[in-house]
């Protein structure tokens, strides 16, 4: 008996066939969840199964990515009879499979712990594995039909998960808005594929690649994809559903929707813009940059105004998607002008940020979920002081918060630093519009990073620090070990990619090369493991050394203090300038923390209005401060559309109460007019 050689091993691992079998197993778990969902034992069983399958998928995708395996395809006799179902595993899909299954693995482990507190497990267990299967299928699909079916499957299953607690009014509204936006997105993608396939109906991606569309058609398709994928990713102004729907789902699902499903949408955009549409036009980059910049600043400003912890995180997803699209827009602009290396830098930055955001956003949602499990509260105004009762969750949430605020030496800083370096290469671009746009977008990028830090000081400070604002927060307990382990692993990865960004950059190098024709120089070969985007004299960053310096100097300081300073310490009541107030209500709240920023940024953008209602003298009732915020996107775009639809529906309602005679007349009239159209244009 001989051991199988490595080549034999790669013959069946890292193939779409194996990945598809895993997907089938996931669907099996979905059926199992539907069958035994109400039993107590069902939840650990389904989640551990999902964790195992995700780990297998993750290993295969990681193998395919690191070995830079050539693309492999699979064909199944399913779907439309004349094309069947095509699947393909290439570098780009491998990157996103890694992201999806890393998130899925973490979420499954987390749910083994916190999932057992779910009040309606039979509404989660059937859909959770199906949701994982749907996301994997979207990334593997290699023809328009398979793609759209998987995409719609993913949307519908996640919609079902949003409606887990469907008796709450807010969730019902969230589900309604989500299904509308998801249908709109699918429609846009459907039309986009229609344009690419052309009248001959070449639905397979391979035939689209062979016959790139004319620039005119490509531009129209790009606009449709920007809308279709953008509505799922949360690009402004199509983001309105996201902060409603993501927090409504159970926390581990929120984490997947925010951390991973938005990335599937980014994948779709990259697949179109860098693979199927042929050579880009320079102004595509401009549009994407503009949309990305606006999205990032809108997202972070709205996040600052929230006091629901999960909704705040969801708005931050909008912000980070904006940052990712800024990177993608830069890559498109550089590539259209033949600046391969700069395009590679920008695309690497975007892909690296995709990975980083999936890590820390999943971690943060798990933290919010742990708080929700422990206290039953999502509203920060009822929390506080949790660092004493949930020290592990607090520490891990803090790591995620520091990472998303782009603080060195964590991973969020590494990818935003790369994006800024890409911005600095852009004066070489010849187009005037881009010359004026890019500095402004760079400013927006810096502004949103600074505001994100402010927002996470607020989120962490109000939730975990200070004194408890409610009995629930005062009596919280730490969550299960499974959940903590999952969060700990994610925090460790945030740290690892922060000090060794070169590993991630090198891993996505071949993918970037196949997308834009160039790649960043290999980073792991550089001495001291620094990252150097272009040249060392130009810019370099070494997370490892920065971390080493911080640790060394902290140790030095601790030693010096220990040696020379007084060790005495006395616990005393808080000083508070001599006027401590025993009531926790006198602490700063989320609302009051954001007040200065609301006054600076909100008076125009959100029409923020504050009004103080003082009771008349002698009246015992308390004075009240009310704040009125408006979402101009909702008021200016969605409210008119929804009004128009409502108006039209009212008018058309009359058609439901006609006599048979009139219906027949209508049918006849429609037939005649269609025939007329055919006769004239046919």
């Amino acid at each position, binding site marked *: 008996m001989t051991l199988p050689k490595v080549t034999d091993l790669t013959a069946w691992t890292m193939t779409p066939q194996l990945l598809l079998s895993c997907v089938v197993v996931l669907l099996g778990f979905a059926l199992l969840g539907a069958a035994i969902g109400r039993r107590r034992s069902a939840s650990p069983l389904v989640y551990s199964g999902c964790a195992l399958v995700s780990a297998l998928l993750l290993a295969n995708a990681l193998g395919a990515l690191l070995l830079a395996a050539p693309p492999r395809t699979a064909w199944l006799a399913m779907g439309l009879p004349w094309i069947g179902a095509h699947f393909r595993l290439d570098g780009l899909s491998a990157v996103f499979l890694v992201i999806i299954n890393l998130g899925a693995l973490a979420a499954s482990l987390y749910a083994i712990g916190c999932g057992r507190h779910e009040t309606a497990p039979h509404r989660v267990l059937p859909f959770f594995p199906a949701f994982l299967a749907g996301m994997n299928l979207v990334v593997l699909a290699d023809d328009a039909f398979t793609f759209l079916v998987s995409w719609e499957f993913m949307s519908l299953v996640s919609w079902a998960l949003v409606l887990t607690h469907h008796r709450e009014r807010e969730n019902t509204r969230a589900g309604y808005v989500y299904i509308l936006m998801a249908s709109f997105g699918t429609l846009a993608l459907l039309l986009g594929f229609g344009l690419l396939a052309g009248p001959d109906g070449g639905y397979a991606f391979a035939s689209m690649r062979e016959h790139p569309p004319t620039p005119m058609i490509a531009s129209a398709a790009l606009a449709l994809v920007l809308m279709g994928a953008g509505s799922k990713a949360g690009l402004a102004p199509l983001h309105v559903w996201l902060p409603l729907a993501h927090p409504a789902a159970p926390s581990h699902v929120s984490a997947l929707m925010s951390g991973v499903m938005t990335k599937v949408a980014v994948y779709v955009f990259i697949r179109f813009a860098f693979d199927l549409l042929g050579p880009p036009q320079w102004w595509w980059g401009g549009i994407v940059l503009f949309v990305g910049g606006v999205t990032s600043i809108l997202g972070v400003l709205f996040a600052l105004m929230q006091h629901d912890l999960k909704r705040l995180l969801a708005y931050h997803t909008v912000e980070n998607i904006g940052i990712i699209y800024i990177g993608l827009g830069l890559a498109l602009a550089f590539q259209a002008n033949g600046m391969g290396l700069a395009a590679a830098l920008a695309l690497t930055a975007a892909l690296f940020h995709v990975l980083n955001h999936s890590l820390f956003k999943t971690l943060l949602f798990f933290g919010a979920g742990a708080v929700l499990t422990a206290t039953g509260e999502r509203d920060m105004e009822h929390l506080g002081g949790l660092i004493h009762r949930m020290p592990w969750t607090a520490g891990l949430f803090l790591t995620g918060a520091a990472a998303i605020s782009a603080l060195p030496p964590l991973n969020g800083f590494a990818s935003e630093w790369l994006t800024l370096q890409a911005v600095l290469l852009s004066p070489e671009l010849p187009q*005037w519009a881009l*010359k*004026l746009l890019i500095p402004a977008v760079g400013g927006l990028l810096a502004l949103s*990073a600074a505001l994100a830090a402010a927002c996470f000081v607020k989120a962490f400070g109000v939730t975990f*620090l200070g004194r408890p604002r409610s009995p629930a927060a005062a009596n919280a307990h730490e969550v299960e070990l499974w959940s903590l382990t999952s969060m700990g692993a994610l925090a460790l990865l945030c740290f690892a990619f922060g000090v060794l960004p070169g590993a991630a950059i090198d891993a996505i190098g071949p993918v970037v090369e196949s997308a834009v024709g160039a790649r960043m120089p290999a980073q792991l070969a550089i001495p001291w493991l*620094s990252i150097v985007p272009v040249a060392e004299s*130009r810019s370099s960053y*070494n997370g490892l050394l920065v971390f080493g310096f911080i640790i060394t100097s*902290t140790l030095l300081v601790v030693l010096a203090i220990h040696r020379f300073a007084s060790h005495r310490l006395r616990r005393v009541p*808080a000083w508070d300038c001599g006027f401590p107030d025993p009531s926790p209500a006198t602490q700063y709240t989320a609302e009051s923390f954001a007040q200065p920023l609301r006054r600076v940024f909100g008076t125009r953008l959100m029409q923020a209005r504050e009004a103080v209602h003082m009771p008349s003298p002698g009246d015992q009732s308390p004075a009240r401060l009310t704040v009125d915020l408006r979402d101009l996107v909702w008021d200016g775009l969605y409210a008119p559309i929804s009004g128009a639809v409502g108006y039209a529906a009212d008018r058309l309602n009359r058609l439901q109460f006609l006599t048979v005679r009139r219906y027949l007349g209508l049918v006849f009239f429609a037939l005649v007019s269609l025939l007329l159209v055919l006769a004239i244009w046919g």
Partner: protein
Amino acid sequence: MGIITALTTQFAQMLLVLLLAPLFTGLVRKLKARLLRRQGPPLIQPYRDLARLLQKEVALAENASWLFRASPYLIFSATWVAASLVPTFATGLMFSWSADLIAIIALLGSARFFLALAGMDVGTSFGGIGSSRESMIASLAEPAMIMIVFTLALVAGSTQLSTMADIMRAPELGLRVSLGLALVALILVALAENARIPVDNPATHLELTMVHEAMVLEYSGRHLALIEFASSLKLLLYVSLIACVFVPWGLAPAGAEPAEYWRGAGLYAGKLVIAGVALALFESSIAKMRVFRLADFLGAALMLGLLGTLLLFVARSL
């Protein structure tokens, strides 16, 4: 041999900023007092203050968490690392490439992140007010700083401070409008970041307008010493930064003779004195601003930075 010299210079720089920071703070205090016709504290008063605080007992609030106790160490070490990475008397030090200007700004951002969290930890209203206002100031000052970095980086073709200093020193550079805008913006940001008048008053206590002091109100003993030391270091960092980018003359290049290092150090001391006089004059001649006018103050810095960058973007094709 080369490595040993390089390491020594690097450590010399780390020690130098550590030793000079309280002295510079003392210098500014003394000059301000003299301008007000007061005798003022001696120059070494900040060292005495630090030594006294280190010997004192820590009075820790009852509900302070581990974060409150760990933050002073983190704040101090992040600020110290950042200050050691800015060239003072020599460029091209051994580890100067490990973080560029953007990373230095972000390191200061980390220090501030933990300071603001520490302000909220005990759960007092003063701590909250300080953190909230500091976050507002930071969210305007940081993007302004990044725009300044853009301007400098586009002129120098690099975000590395050592390269920047070398290019700024070159005679062919000449005067540029963008650099002037960046200098003004950088001074505005430096005033805001270091809680100087007109943004905040470093000498205040028990005022509703205080920002930095409100955050550190609950600190005492060795913790307070570390935080005070970190703010001195930060002030020195910004002065070194302005000196390194806008008056880079006298900085010793990598691998220079010892004499050049000494000359660089002497010139650096001269630059510090000039900066101290300028800061004291400025602070004595201006009143503190209302908190909500700060947005205009820092907005001006942001716009100047943006204008500088835009000019450079546009000028490339002319």
